[in-house]
């Protein structure tokens, strides 16, 4: 059996393809979305999901989120006794998803299709595959998230010879991709995005506006107050997103403050964020050489795409209304399930070959002749231009500036700015040039970029045939086979709580978060609830514990909605 997994930055989902339709599977708490957060308990047990997310506040040292951003790097996070690589943290999330799938489907899945962002480099893709293997599942294929979105909408089957624009606005990232669909091939034509722009920024914008309207400072808020404001702003965002008026009422220093926001105000508040979404869309369209009219469909996915502002922006830029999925935060997972279904039946998708593009321009720094004996230095001259399909190899010819010059220094940069120094320096290469006049001493510089994200720079002096080489690795986060085996064994040894205990653990984690956020009497009240529930747990009477848990959750709900004091 093959499962489809959406391994997201903020949330992850799992499902299967059954009876001609994707079916997502709920976690131990009955939810489809499992927060991509990992936490380690005092006794070394691993917590994943809602409980771990609550522990980000109560136990920040032992919890970690957003590790998808580090995939492909060797950045380690220390949690308790052990340091974890990004793929290991992802493996723990996948393992928890597999547990959920096992309960829902009756047996443990052996194979999976996992979605990855279109711009993921080969190193990041390999890390994702490794995460699957560390979790004990064979990764049958990685599917690009925009492709998964197209599958969720059934576009790959419906359209032929067509371009589709996919806008994916998640909690913390905004990805724009253009797909070319033809003859069962899905080609990622161009991708662009903003890695630090998502729905959370819109919530923050509401908070900031609320604070400034009441002349309050964010630093003056106690953790409990900040958390309450965050929840109210989040709720208000949901109403505002669908064009309703919302009231944000919260307490600061025991005093109630309230502010009513309507659509017009909201639009003003988030205008700078909407403006930031404009550039990636324009860039992707321009790189693909398309106009709004050339697109067969515009589709939106990601939880934050519920916001009207995104569809309005798309309509203004492209002159057409985008399609919206009923459940935008489940769309990618649905697509991954469809891919898993196709894979299981050995059909159609086998024909879909995903081709990758190089996300940045790569080139060297050059000097320009301005005439009248003047030169301007430090210009960036791209050799491989961004969004070239990889692997790719390109050559350009360069000359020394002065007749008496005996070496050329090639400074290799990655980026899009016309000024070399504003781009990322990757390395440099010295090339000896023979004596002679400038014009007879050309050097051919060849850039070769392979699917592994390795850039090879080769400089050949035309006159002497001397060749100098430079290998530049990007995001090298590979593990040796031995190390991978060792880590697999270690990971397998990590304990998690039995599934039927997980709702208790989650309830307790939430209570602990509220304890951490509150002060004084509030805090003592929460402490009382915790002690009471721990006593109930000690009885090991399942029915009694379940009743007590419901009572605890109700008390916590009341506590969270009630004003402090």
């Amino acid at each position, binding site marked *: 059996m093959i499962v489809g997994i959406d391994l997201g930055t903020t949330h992850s989902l799992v499902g299967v393809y059954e009876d001609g339709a994707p079916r997502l599977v709920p976690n131990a708490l009955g939810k489809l979305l499992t927060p991509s957060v990992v936490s380690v308990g005092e006794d070394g047990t691993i917590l994943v999901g809602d409980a771990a997310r609550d522990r980000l506040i109560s136990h920040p040292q032992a919890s970690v989120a957003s590790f998808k951003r580090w995939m492909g790097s060797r950045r380690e996070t220390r949690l308790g006794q052990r340091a974890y690589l990004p793929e290991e943290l992802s493996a723990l999330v996948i393992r928890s998803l597999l547990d959920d799938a096992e309960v829902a489907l009756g047996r443990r899945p052996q194979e999976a299709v996992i979605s990855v962002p279109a711009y993921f480099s080969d190193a990041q893709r390999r890390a994702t595959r490794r995460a699957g293997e560390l979790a004990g599942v064979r990764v049958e294929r990685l599917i690009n998230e925009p492709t998964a979105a197209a599958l969720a909408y059934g576009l790959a089957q419906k359209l032929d*010879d067509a371009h589709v624009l996919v806008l994916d606005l998640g909690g913390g990232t905004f990805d724009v991709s253009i797909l070319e669909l*033809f*003859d069962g*091939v899905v080609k990622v034509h161009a991708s662009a995005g903003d890695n630090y722009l998502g729905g959370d920024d819109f919530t923050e914008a509401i908070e900031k506006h609320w604070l400034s309207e009441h002349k309050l400072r964010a630093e003056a808020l106690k953790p409990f107050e900040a958390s309450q404001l965050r929840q109210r702003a989040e709720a208000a965002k949901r109403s505002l997103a669908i064009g309703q008026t919302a009231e944000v009422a919260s307490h600061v220093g025991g005093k109630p403050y309230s502010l009513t926001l309507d659509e017009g105000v909201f639009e003003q508040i988030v205008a700078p964020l909407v*403006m930031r979404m*404009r550039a990636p869309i*324009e*860039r992707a*369209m*321009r790189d*693909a050489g*398309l*106009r*709004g*009219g050339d697109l067969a469909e515009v589709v939106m996915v990601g939880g934050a795409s519920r916001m009207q502002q995104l569809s309005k922006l798309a309509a*203004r*830029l492209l*002159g057409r209304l985008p399609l919206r999925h009923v459940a935008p935060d489940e769309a990618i997972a649905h697509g991954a399930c469809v891919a898993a279904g196709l894979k299981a039946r050995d059909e159609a998708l086998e024909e879909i*070959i995903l081709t*990758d593009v190089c996300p940045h*321009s790569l080139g*060297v*720094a*050059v*000097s*320009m*002749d*301005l005439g*009248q004996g*003047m*030169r*301007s*230095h*430090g*210009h*960036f*001259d*791209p050799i491989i*231009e961004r969004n070239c*399909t990889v*692997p*790719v190899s390109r050559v*350009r*010819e*360069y*000359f*020394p*500036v*002065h007749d008496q010059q005996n*070496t*050329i*220094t*090639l*400074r290799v940069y990655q980026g*899009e700015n*016309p*000024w070399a*120094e504003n781009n990322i320096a990757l390395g440099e290469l010295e090339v000896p040039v023979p004596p002679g006049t400038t014009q007879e001493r*050309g050097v051919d510089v060849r850039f070769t970029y392979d*699917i592994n994200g390795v850039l090879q720079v080769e400089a050949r002096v035309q006159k002497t045939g001397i060749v100098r080489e430079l290998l530049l690795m990007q995001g090298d986060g590979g593990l040796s086979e031995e190390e991978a085996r060792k880590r697999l064994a270690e990971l397998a040894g990590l304990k998690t709580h039995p599934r039927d205990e997980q709702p208790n653990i989650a309830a307790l984690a939430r209570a602990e978060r509220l304890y951490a956020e509150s002060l004084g009497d509030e805090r003592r009240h929460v402490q009382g609830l915790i002690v009471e529930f721990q006593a109930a747990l000690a009885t090991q009477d399942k029915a009694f514990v379940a009743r007590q848990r419901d009572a605890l959750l109700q008390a916590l709900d009341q506590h969270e909605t009630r004003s402090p004091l």
Partner: protein
Amino acid sequence: MTQSAWDILGIEESADSRTIRRAYAARLKTSRPEDDPAAFQRLTDAYEWAMGDARRRSLESPGPAQAPSTEAPPVPPTGQAEATQDMALPELGRALEPSGPVPSADPEPPPSDDDGFAFGPFFSALADRIRERDPKHLRRWLDEHPDLYSLELKWALMPHVFDTLAHNASMLDPHRGHLEALTGFFGVDARLRRHPALAPALDFLERAQWRQEVAAPSASSMPKGWENLANVLDDSRQGPPRPRKPIQTTWAARIADYWWVLFLILILGKLGRFLSQ
């Protein structure tokens, strides 16, 4: 030894884009990137070249539905766009002469409009802002301009804005900050900067400013190592990017340049007070 793109794809030279896509799709199944990177690149290069060629052909002989002029009514200027092989840009207005950066005395007639957007009034509003307002205001005005949300209009407009600006440069004397606001708004990056429809006007607008900069004594300390690499003088390539150096023109920087004036005023004031005592 050299196979043509058509040989690699196994199709006729006159094939249309649909046939080219089909051929590419069929051959992709035998040369997958992970199995044979070299064959994959050959195939993809051939595909991209063939698609570019098909596009050029359809531009040369406007077919029933392929010509850009019939495709996009809201685009104000519709001449023939110069399709460049390695740059898949949407047709940028109309191609400028790649070798004519020096503007003639009388500007070209600004493109007229058929569909609600008039270039003339737009440009004069733009000129007013360049004359009277700072770059920050200019950028905000462009960002908020309701008509410029449309990508088609924005791109069609881009070469005309820079071209007309180059023609009127002596009159408007655009500040470097204004140029930066414009290139920033239109998203002119290293790649777009080379486009034949943009390079001449931008070269003209920017070159004068670099000359001043290079000639200025403060800029004589060139960054280390950049002096020993020259760009080709090979004219087969499109004009190389000639961007300009961002220069600080904030008030803080100006004050920093004239700190001694403030210092002098302070000293004189103290001295005056001392003497009057």
